[in-house]
């Protein structure tokens, strides 16, 4: 008998007043009863619209059915057939525009909480597994070496799938920690780092070797990798180059790219006193942008002691690309949404420290190329008194690989060109994730990594047949 409640089973959360003083996870997850009750809301539709909304085709009704029966381990196995990072995706996927957007229950009420259930299965499995010794699941090697550039979501999923197929995989990571945006970008209160570490350990348990502190394009080039005997290379180097606004005053002290701010906080642990990493703990902070990264930066600033944090966004709340849950949580935490506002100049004192930011007041006109209504200046201006400005208006792919790889075609934004989504213009070189699409989501990058693993397998097998 289906649970016909219109709303999702609520998930417990830390009280906003308490959580703005810590970096522990905001949402606390379902218990067994909550999960089974929520699973009963799934109608087990035969045409499975939710699956078509998932970039990696998680068998959603099947795993939810297993949860409903209390077969949590079975549910986990069903998810991990197609998704190697379920604890991550359950937390950071934009479900409301993917699987849950297609859910039939969403027509009259809230969709089934697919993301929360996915997270529940992964967390429950991890809690059990943490009590058991680590088992190496290394398969017999087929003797062929593949190199993966970047230990983010695309690279890790590609590496995991290739290892399962018997390849000897080395992942080259430029930073001192694997995980890419999962480590440096997404804060611990949204994605606890022990979860990321666990998921990376799972990939290592498959026999994947991760070589840190190695920058492809500097330490080694793609051509060096072929000389070292790698038969194929996957580029999953992401989109890490931050965009700035190009307005006067942007190099003042106290103006951060969101990448810098979040890296200082998340990767370099500036919020913990025992770490040397410095960061400005400003009282009044503006964050420019309307995506998840802007929300993350704003909520970090709040936790670092800011009295006022304003999200400055040139369109209205409806057009914000952030997950609805993040906007909701940000508002609960007292983050102000300064909508229809577009910065034009940042002012600083004689020492170069930010004092204020002048903005145009905007209005929405006709829809633009993105389908969203175009923001236009009204002629009015306003000034925000702030000591720090965090710019979160997007990123583009890092240029180091394209600058050092002859014959690798890229487009005008620096994204790697592919013929079929993953095959590049260089033989034996494949690419996926943000390096190809520009900044997108964790799940799309993982999907591309898996697709590339298949393409690499096909390529290396056909090459072997040709002798």
């Amino acid at each position, binding site marked *: 008998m289906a649970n016909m409640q219109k709303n999702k089973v609520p998930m417990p959360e830390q009280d906003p007043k308490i959580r703005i003083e810590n970096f522990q996870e905001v949402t606390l997850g379902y218990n067994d009863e909550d999960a089974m009750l929520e699973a009963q809301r799934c109608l087990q539709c035969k045409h499975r619209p939710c699956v078509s909304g998932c970039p990696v085709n998680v068998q959603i009704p099947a795993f939810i059915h297993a949860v409903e029966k209390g077969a949590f381990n079975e549910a986990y196995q069903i998810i991990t057939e197609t998704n190697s990072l379920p604890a991550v995706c359950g937390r950071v996927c934009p479900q409301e525009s993917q699987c849950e957007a297609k859910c039939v229950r969403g027509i009259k009420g809230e969709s089934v909480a697919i993301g929360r259930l996915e997270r529940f299965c992964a967390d429950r499995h991890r809690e059990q597994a943490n009590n058991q010794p680590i088992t190496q699941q290394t398969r017999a090697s087929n003797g062929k070496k593949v190199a993966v550039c970047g230990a983010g979501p695309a690279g890790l999923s590609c590496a995991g799938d290739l290892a399962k197929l018997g390849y000897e995989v080395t992942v080259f990571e430029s930073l001192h920690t694997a995980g890419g945006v999962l480590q440096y970008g997404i804060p611990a209160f949204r994605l606890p780092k022990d979860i990321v570490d666990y998921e990376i350990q799972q990939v290592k348990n498959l026999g994947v070797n991760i070589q840190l502190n190695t920058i492809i394009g*500097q330490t080694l080039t793609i051509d060096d990798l072929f000389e070292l005997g790698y038969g194929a290379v996957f580029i999953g180097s992401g989109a890490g180059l931050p965009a700035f606004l190009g307005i006067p005053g942007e190099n003042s002290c106290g103006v951060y790219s969101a990448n810098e701010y979040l890296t200082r906080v998340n990767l370099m642990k500036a919020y913990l006193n025992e770490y040397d990493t410095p960061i400005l703990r400003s009282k009044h902070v503006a964050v420019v942008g309307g995506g998840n990264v802007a929300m993350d930066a704003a909520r970090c600033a709040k936790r670092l002691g800011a009295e006022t944090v304003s999200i400055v966004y040139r369109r209205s709340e409806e057009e914000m690309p952030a997950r609805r849950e993040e906007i909701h949580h940000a508002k609960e935490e007292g983050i102000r949404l300064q909508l229809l506002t577009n910065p034009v100049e940042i002012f600083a004192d004689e020492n170069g420290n930010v004092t204020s930011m002048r903005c145009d007041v905007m209005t929405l006109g006709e829809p633009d190329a993105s389908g969203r209504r175009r923001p236009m200046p009204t002629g009015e201006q306003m000034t925000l008194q702030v000591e720090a400005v965090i710019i979160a208006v997007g990123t583009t792919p890092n240029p180091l690989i394209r600058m050092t790889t002859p014959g690798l075609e890229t487009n005008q934004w620096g994204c790697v060109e592919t013929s079929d989504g993953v095959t590049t213009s260089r033989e034996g070189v494949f690419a996926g994730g943000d390096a190809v699409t520009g900044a997108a989501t964790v799940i799309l990058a993982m999907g591309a990594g898996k697709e590339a693993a298949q393409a690499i397998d096909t390529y290396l097998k056909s090459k072997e047949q040709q002798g």
Partner: protein
Amino acid sequence: MFRIVKKNILNETTDHITVEAPLIANKAKPGQFIILRTDEKSERIPLTIAGYDKEQGTISLIYQKIGHSTKALGALMEGDAILDLAGPLGKPTALDGYTKVAVVGGGLGCAIAYPQAKYLFDHGCDVTVFAGFRSREHIILEQEMKACCSHLHVLTDDGSNGNKGLVTDGLRGCIQQGETYELVIAIGPPMMMKFVSLLTKDFGIKTFVSMNPIMIDGTGMCGCCRVTVGGKIKFACVDGPDFDGHAVDFDELMRRNRMYLAQERGPGRDEHCNLLKQSVTITQD
């Protein structure tokens, strides 16, 4: 982990270490840098590669123990290991095709200027080195520099080595005596690079300077190291670290380098660091 195979203490604040890093040694070129993290809780600090030996698979680094993280690095001894080391980063200095160059180093900047002078000299270029230090006790690399240039001028702020003056004085003197340089390479504290650049601009001599902003990743990811060059934002880590000295906004660089000064912990921290000085007495004759 990256093992320290040799350590020389050059003076009370400055160490010279040789570190096992074969991949980096294999690729390193003059002007490039590395980023290291001494231990789990340290900052990532950029240091220019002071030398490299492809056969031994080692690089050498020279640093001043002035901040929390460089002091932690300074506490490591021969045989100890640095937790993380990544590089080589940045673009190599474009040094080919010159026949007469002046290399100007200020203090620790000499550690960066030395491999450039050596490369030029080894490739048949006439090299004049102007090396400036606070006092006689702070002089580093004198023998090394002497071995890789045609003329070496060592100057001290206090005259304790018998040659009082700033590097700008030495350079101006030679230019006024009729020396002609195709290129001046100036490496040292921003204030020194600023004044060398002002001087060479007057004489119309092409000038490279090596930027030393605050960095995190060193691969273009954080944008922390942005500098204004010719009115445009450049990232020192991937677009540099060398830029046209006549186009760099040094005042902005100095302001940005001071951004975290208020957060420095402990007394005396950074008192020796010329990177952070806003005012230096410049003698204009």
